[in-house]
């Protein structure tokens, strides 16, 4: 099945009707004093974007709308990646170790999939199933070539099911540990489903060495409340592309957390879609890029139904030579998604010279009848003057660095609200800090 999502036609009438109430952008408030024809209103704001070099003048047509991106289960539908695509322009393709070239010049993706071990409460089922299981493909469709390659080639999938009305607590969590089996390109597939009114926490814990393309489907049934935490704490040589497709039911709530710590190249692409009204998506992310690491996070929240909410908070610290973090936050509010309430935030803290963070929030708004829409992005630097200041108060350099990073990342860690994980993440951050290059 191939599906090319329709590019949304421009309808400037929607804009002339109303203002976007409560839209804020880095302290800038749109209010009724901004006329539709002004620089903050009107069609110029419709294709609103920052930092994207593919975006033009912005009058009229929403150029390169996220809605227009190709989605397909078939690898053959995707052209070869050149690195010039908006979607790939930050990724060092050479370091993907072939994941981008599957099917080209004999490149295969048939290495052993990660070993899956699990611990779970009795009521939660964890199964290993074949490709033909009907539940596969219910939450999303690959949006890039690497994800499609995995979809076409995985041999077995792991399915986690929280039964209807299941009430898991924050101490009663399901953990899948996926241990990489070496550096031959491999494919993996995971489906996590919370049935109607189920509540619980599922953790994906990636470790070991792998060159892996993975699809994760997250299905959140009506009225369910699911937390999914995906931890990427691989060995230094690992390469991991993970497309995480989230489908949110009516009045359902999902908290999706991405923790990117270990690996040579991590590319995590979570996308959230709503099937009905009242859905609530909270996306949290924490990453810590060390020397030589490329950690890329690309998010997409597709508001296509009324009265849904999304909150995105990603924070990252970077240290060491050529440490690189990329955060792209695409939010699309379609014309029919009236009453949408969305806000996304990305903050980066650069601890040493030689590290680089790219942060690009993109907000496309096709209706003015929304509760609120905003974004904020900032990259700060822990510089010599800050260090000097803390040292003049008696604080040693290593403690000073920790103080700053802990404070910075704690904001995300606290919001995960799974005690066992919070503890582990604090330790992981300490470990990353201990590896500070001098």
């Amino acid at each position, binding site marked *: 099945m191939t599906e090319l999502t329709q590019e949304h036609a421009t309808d400037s009438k929607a804009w002339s009707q109303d203002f976007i109430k409560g839209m804020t952008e880095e302290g800038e408030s749109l209010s009724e004093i901004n006329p539709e024809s002004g620089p903050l209103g009107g069609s110029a704001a419709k294709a609103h974007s920052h930092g994207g070099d593919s975006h033009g003048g912005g009058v009229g047509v929403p150029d390169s709308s996220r809605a227009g991106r190709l989605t397909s289960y078939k690898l053959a539908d995707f052209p070869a990646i050149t690195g010039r695509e908006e979607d790939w322009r930050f990724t060092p393709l050479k370091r993907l170790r072939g994941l981008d070239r599957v099917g080209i010049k004999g490149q295969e993706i048939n290495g052993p999939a990660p070993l899956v071990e699990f611990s779970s409460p009795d009521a939660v089922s964890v199964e290993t199933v074949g490709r033909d299981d009907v539940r596969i493909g219910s939450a999303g469709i690959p949006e890039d070539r690497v994800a499609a390659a995995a979809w076409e080639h995985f041999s077995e999938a792991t399915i986690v099911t929280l039964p209807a009305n299941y009430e898991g607590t924050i101490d009663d969590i399901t953990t899948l540990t996926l241990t990489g089996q070496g550096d031959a390109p491999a494919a993996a597939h995971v489906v996590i489903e919370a049935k109607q009114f189920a509540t619980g926490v599922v953790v994906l814990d990636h470790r070991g060495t792998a060159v892996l393309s993975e699809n994760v489907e997250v299905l959140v049934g009506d009225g369910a409340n699911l937390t999914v935490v995906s931890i990427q704490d691989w060995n230094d040589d690992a390469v991991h592309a993970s497309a995480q497709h989230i489908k949110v039911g009516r009045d359902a709530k999902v908290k999706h957390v991405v923790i990117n710590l270990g690996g040579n190249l991590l590319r995590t692409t979570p996308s959230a879609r709503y099937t009905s009204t009242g859905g609530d998506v909270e996306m949290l992310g924490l990453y810590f890029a060390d020397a030589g690491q490329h950690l890329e996070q690309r998010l997409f929240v597709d508001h296509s139904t009324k009265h849904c909410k999304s909150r995105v908070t990603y924070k990252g610290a970077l240290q060491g030579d050529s440490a690189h973090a990329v955060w792209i936050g695409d939010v699309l509010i379609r014309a029919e998604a009236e009453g949408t309430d969305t806000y996304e935030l990305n903050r980066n803290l650069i601890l040493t010279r030689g590290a680089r963070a790219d942060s690009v929030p993109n907000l496309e708004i096709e209706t003015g009848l929304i509760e609120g829409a905003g974004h904020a992005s900032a990259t700060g630097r822990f510089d010599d003057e800050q260090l000097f200041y803390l*040292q003049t108060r008696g604080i040693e350099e290593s403690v000073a660095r920790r103080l700053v990073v802990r404070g910075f990342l704690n904001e995300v860690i606290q919001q995960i609200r799974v005690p066992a994980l919070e503890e582990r993440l604090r330790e992981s951050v300490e470990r990353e800090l201990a590896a500070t290059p001098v």
Partner: protein
Amino acid sequence: MSTLEIKDLHVSITTEQGTKAILKGVSLTIKTGETHAIMGPNGSGKSTLASTIAGHPRYNVDSGTITLDGEDVLAMTVDQRARAGLFLAMQYPVEIPGVTMTNFLRTAKTAIEGEAPKLRTWTKDVKAAMAQLRIEPEFAERNVNEGFSGGEKKRHEILQLELLHPKFAVLDETDSGLDVDALKVVSEGVNRAIDAGGLGTILITHYTRILRYIKPDFVHVFVDGSIAEQGGPELADRLEAEGYDRYQVAETASA
């Protein structure tokens, strides 16, 4: 009684144009209980002295010594100097995102004392010190200096002075940019620290205004990297009346 002794200090910085000498032989002895005002026109090296005492990496000490009760200060790292009892109130305090004032103050106190302060008394001390400096309680939860006004930053410098109890405090143009009300509040804080005893103060200022509120025992006039004149408080009065003109420096160019 402690003594901070600066002997024949020569300091330079490295710029794109090469090495530039800033301090050209400064000698100064300060004992706890004394307040020394260091005055001088812009570019005379006052702030360089402050930064050099604290150990800012930008400044190269070419010769001379700084000792604290005979201990070689120049051999200490920045944080060691602070733990030895030196404090610098900065002219331009730095913003530290992600670290709340509460967390920062407690960490600094722990570092300087070598052990964590007792929570109950510490919280009480911080609250009282904040109230005296007319700092709103909400500042405790804000990130260090982030979004603070110039006056708020200076009050927080003095807050730290009062809470950390150093042996010697260098106040680098703490008065600059303050309106009269803020200047009074800040000066009261410095006077409280002085009156508490055991503190030697080096008050660096361009103007004589702050000396109406904080009375120096000694006044040193810096001109072009060395001390041109020194004396008692009467020297400050004379500077107030005559300015720096008689040291034959072109003030207007840099003011």
